[in-house]
């Protein structure tokens, strides 16, 4: 399975975990971003994700390189979904294995924080009475 993916298909969390399992690893941290059914108390009907796919993959590659330079991690997998998602659907999975849990937790946290700041993926929240591109306006 590929380390990085931007995909229209549902993400299978177990496959991401299996891909980072390594006999020398003692800890795996996994972050799973899911679609919430409401934002600030307002019901969300669906989310629509789009990506600038080639650039998103190269920005993800940069995150992986940064992570490997900063922490002694064994393997890292980042899969992000695009298209139309509903409450409870998995939008992103980041799995990181390391010999010890410190590195796994810190690297996973850094990866999702940086993804949200730099990777060209956008989501539109669709409500009953309108839609909003998340973070687009102050």
């Amino acid at each position, binding site marked *: 399975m590929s380390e990085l993916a931007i995909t229209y298909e549902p993400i299978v969390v177990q496959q991401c975990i299996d891909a980072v399992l390594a006999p020398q690893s003692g800890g795996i941290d996994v972050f799973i971003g899911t679609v919430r059914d409401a934002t600030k108390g307002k019901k969300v009907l669906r989310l629509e994700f789009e990506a600038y796919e080639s650039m998103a993959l190269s920005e993800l590659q940069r995150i992986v390189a940064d992570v490997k330079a900063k922490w002694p991690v064994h393997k890292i997998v980042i899969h*992000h979904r695009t298209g139309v998602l509903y409450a409870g659907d998995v*939008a992103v999975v980041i799995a990181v294995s390391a010999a010890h849990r410190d590195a796994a937790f810190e690297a996973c946290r850094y990866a999702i924080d940086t*993804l949200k700041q*730099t990777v*060209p*993926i956008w989501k539109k929240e669709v409500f009953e009475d309108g839609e909003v591109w*998340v973070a*687009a306006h102050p």
Partner: protein
Amino acid sequence: MKINILAFGIAREIVGSPLTTAKLIDGLRVQQLKNDLEEQYPKLKQLTSFMIAVNGVYAMPDTVIEPGDEVALIPPVSGG
């Protein structure tokens, strides 16, 4: 020179198309392109941020746009 410009998310909605072809002067820098676009599409100025990527990399303001470059309008990202 003629150049293809990709637009994503709300920027795509503001410019009205995921791909536009613009006629740019030779030696145009990213900052000037940004200014021109904001003049043509004032709604771009209302965004929290608005970046230009050239060939899949966030571009510096003084980057010169070359013929054949892939230019993209990057509104605030919101993945995850």
